[in-house]
Every structure is written in C-alpha cells, then in structure tokens.
C-alpha cells in the first residue's frame, strides 16, 4: 500500500470546501468595507498620525500634578454615578427579570414587554441616554445616574432571567409540596438558587459602570468626563494626562474590588 492511503486528515473534503467559501466571502466583505472607509478617509492626516500622536504625548509632560486635587470631587461623583446607577438598575431588574423568565412570568404578554425593555436598554448606550437626560433634567450627576441605570437594567435583567430559567425545578416542586404560597415559593426556592449569580452580575456591572461613568460627563451628566472634555478642548494636555491616570487607577481599583467581593460572596 502506498503511504498516501494512511495520511490522516483533520477535516473532510466537503468541510474544506465550505470553509474555503466562508473565508472567500469574509475576505471579500472585508475588502469591500475597507474600500468604503478608505474613500472617506483623508489619508495625509492618517500618515501624519504617528507624528501627531507622539507630539501630543510629548505635550503631556511634565504632568500638571497639583491638578490632582481638583479632580477629587469629580472622581467622587463618578463613583457615585456608578454605584447609585447600578443600585437603581439592580432593584428594577428584579421585576423585569422575574417577568422575562419563562418559568416565573405570569403572562406571555408581560414577558414580551419585559424582553422589549431588555433589548431597548441594551441597544442604547449610556452616553446616548445621558444626552437625552441632560436635555430633560439639566446637567448634573442625576442625569448620569439615570443614564447608567437605564443602560444597566437590560444587562442585569438578561443575565438574571437566564439564570432563573436554568434553576433546578425539583427544589421548586419540593417547596410547593409543603403548601407554600406563590410568593413564598419564589422566595424559598427560586431566590436562593439565583442569588449568587445575581450578586456576581451586579458587582460585575458596577465594575463596567465605573468605566461608563467616566464618559457621561462629556455630554454634561456629571463625573470626570466633564474635566476631560475641558482639558482636551482647551488643549491642556498636562491636565489631560492626570485625568487619564486617575481613570486608569480608578478602573484598576474597581476591578480588584469587584473581584474580591465576588470571591467572598460566591
């Protein structure tokens, strides 16, 4: 027998053909998209980008260290926006998730409504919510808090209702068999099962929200984004680098903090 007969192949011929087709389509689409973007780009600016970028970095030094003191209040506001925004979202998403989960939803119409709330909230980012809310409520921390919570409701509810749908039905039946009411069945059989993942989701969302709340200030909704906008529009790069450093350390801190809490609770 020739050696060729023993050659091992990872994939069948049909599969290889399919993959070639897939890759061709993907690459064609990429070239097509790239051409559109390229046509809308002023290339000399891009070629110049590296030089501009390095110049910009140079202008950031020496950093304006005393500016740090002025940032304490905006940083506090940023944390407040993230915390209260998450808290409001978590409370609201308890209801939404309960309505959206197939096994706890009282009516299929309510379920559709809850799913619509989730999709709407997830599709529109907090900055856009912030633009709308600043027009209505005026600039300030409150607009930021509501913007963050409107964006978070969908995220928290989605993860929560998915974990409600995955619970162990036997425990629900066991509690039901004791003759408990609908409400106490929920409290004693569903809640304990989803609680750990719920807290994990909430803390994780808080961590994401710290990042998000650093930008809602750009449109006037409070927090450090306002100072960032001022520094960049005013070309105050030595201030901007201090802001970047503050954001970086805040995000790192929140990541460590949320990892620690999740470890303790779960």
């Amino acid at each position, binding site marked *: 027998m020739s050696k060729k007969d023993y050659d091992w192949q990872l994939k069948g011929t049909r599969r290889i053909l399919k993959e070639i087709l897939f890759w061709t389509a993907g690459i064609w689409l990429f070239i097509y998209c790239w051409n559109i973007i390229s046509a809308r*780009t002023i290339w000399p600016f*891009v070629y110049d980008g590296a030089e501009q970028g390095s110049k910009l970095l140079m202008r950031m030094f020496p950093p304006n260290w005393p500016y740090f003191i002025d940032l304490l209040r905006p940083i506090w506001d940023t944390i407040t926006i993230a915390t209260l925004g998450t808290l409001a979202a978590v409370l609201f998403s308890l209801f939404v998730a309960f309505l959206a989960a197939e096994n706890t939803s009282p009516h299929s119409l309510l379920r559709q409504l809850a799913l619509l709330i989730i999709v709407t909230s997830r599709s529109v980012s907090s900055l*856009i919510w912030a*633009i709308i809310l600043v*027009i209505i*409520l*005026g600039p300030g921390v409150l607009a930021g808090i509501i913007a963050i919570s409107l964006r978070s409701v969908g995220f928290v509810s989605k993860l929560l209702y998915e974990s409600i749908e995955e619970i162990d039905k036997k425990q629900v039946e066991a509690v039901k068999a004791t003759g408990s009411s609908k409400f106490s069945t929920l409290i004693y059989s569903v809640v304990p099962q989803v609680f750990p993942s719920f807290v994990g989701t909430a803390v994780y969302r808080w961590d994401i929200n710290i990042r998000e709340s*650093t930008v809602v200030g750009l449109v006037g909704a409070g927090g450090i984004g306002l100072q960032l906008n001022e520094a960049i529009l005013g070309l105050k790069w030595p201030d901007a680098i201090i802001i970047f450093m503050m954001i*970086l350390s805040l995000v790192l801190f929140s990541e460590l903090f949320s990892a620690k809490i999740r470890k303790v609770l779960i």
Partner: protein
Amino acid sequence: MLTESSGNYSWQRPHLIKNKNKRKIIYLLVLAYLIFTFISLRVDPQRILLGLSRSQKYFGDFLRPDFISRWDSIVDGILESLTMTYVATVFGIIISIPFAFGAAENISPKPIYYFSRAVIVISRSFQEVVIAIFFVVVIGFGPMAGVLTLTFSSIGFLAKLLAEEIEDIDWTQVEAVKATGASWPQLMTYSILPQILPRFIGLSVYRLDINFRASAVIGVVGAGGIGTTLNAAFDRYEFDSASAILIVMIAIVLLGELFSSFIRTKIK
C-alpha cells in the same frame, strides 16, 4: 432538638454574612455611604421641573419617529457603522491572537506575559469614547478614527478572555501531542487551537455585536458612523429623527443578537 417545644425553635434563613458583629458593621458602613452620597447629589428641583415641562414636547416627538426626512443620512450612517464594525472586528481578532497567547500564564514566558497584560489593562480601562477622542485628535474626524478606536478596544477584550480560555485548557492533550515529537507550531494547531476555537469564534461574534453598539456612541465625538447622524439630530433638537435612528439601531442589534445566537448554537 425534638424535645424542645416547637414555639421556642423557629427556623431562619441563613444570613449572608455569618458573623453577627461583622454583619452589623458592614451594613452600617454601606448605609452611611449611601446616605453620604445622597447628600452629595446636589439636585436642582427647579431645573428638573422646568425640564419636565419642556420635555413633554420632546416625548411627543419621540413617540412620532420620523424616518423620512433624514432617511438618506440614516442609511449612510448605518452603513458606515456596519463597515467600521466589521473592519475593526477583523483587525481586532488578528491583533488579539498574539496578545492572547502572550497573556496566557501557562504557555508564555514572564516578560512577554507582563507586556501583554499591560496592553490588555490599558485597552480595557478606557471607555471607547475616551479612546475615540484621542484618535480623532490625532488623525482627524471620520470613520478611520472609529476603526482604530474599535480595534484598540477589541484587542483588550478578546485577548483577555481568550487568554483565560488558554489558561483553562486540558494540559494532558498538550502532553499527548508533545509526546509524538510535534514542533511548536504543530503543538499549537493540534493541541491548543482545537480546545479554544469554539470559544474564540463565540467571543468574536460577541465582540462584533459590542462593536456595533459602540460605533453608535463614538460618532458623538466625531469618529464616524451612525453616532454622528444621531448627534446631529440631537443638536438640531430633531427628536423625531433621533427616535427613528434609535429604533433602527435597536432593530439591527436585535438582528445581530439572533445571528450570534444562531452561530453559537451551530458551534456547540
């Protein structure tokens, strides 16, 4: 226990924090923090009342989405967002692979590990909008700034999650392939890649979805896409057009979600 009369013994659900004193201190601290933040809010009720009375008109406009008068710029913005999303995700995937391997503790040498982790931390720490501001300043307005922004933030996301996946692989398979005398590239393709590929495809599709959503925001600071159109609508107080744009965006995100769940069930 049975000898005790039932009146004396009632069952209570276990508390979250076992230690009684610790629990009290933690609850008090949380309460104090919340009270303090509420005091520091500085809400101006008069401004809110003014805004609410004005916002009735806005809400009315929001409920009557106007797709027609800005239809051309909506289509143009959406197309630009979609092209930006696709190009940036492709770039992000390609660049994130080496960083993912570099950031996996079990296969990467220490100096490369720390370098890759630093890149990931920087990429993940800054929100897309902050990165977009930087790129708009450096290379000017337009979709290219958006592509660079989305690429940069995709790298951190994909590399971090992929690196975690590589760290979790089944090492016995790697040893089995190693025992056949495979070279390093062969080791990667036949023992590590098959283990992480399903998750990698899932993550890439997920990131495509995130990038589309993000492409709508970075336009607000001038980085192209539907966000530019949306911001223009807000600036002109054309809430009916803004509402139409938001509806189109929600519809596309919904389609994207169906597409990504379809792909994910196929991989499984």
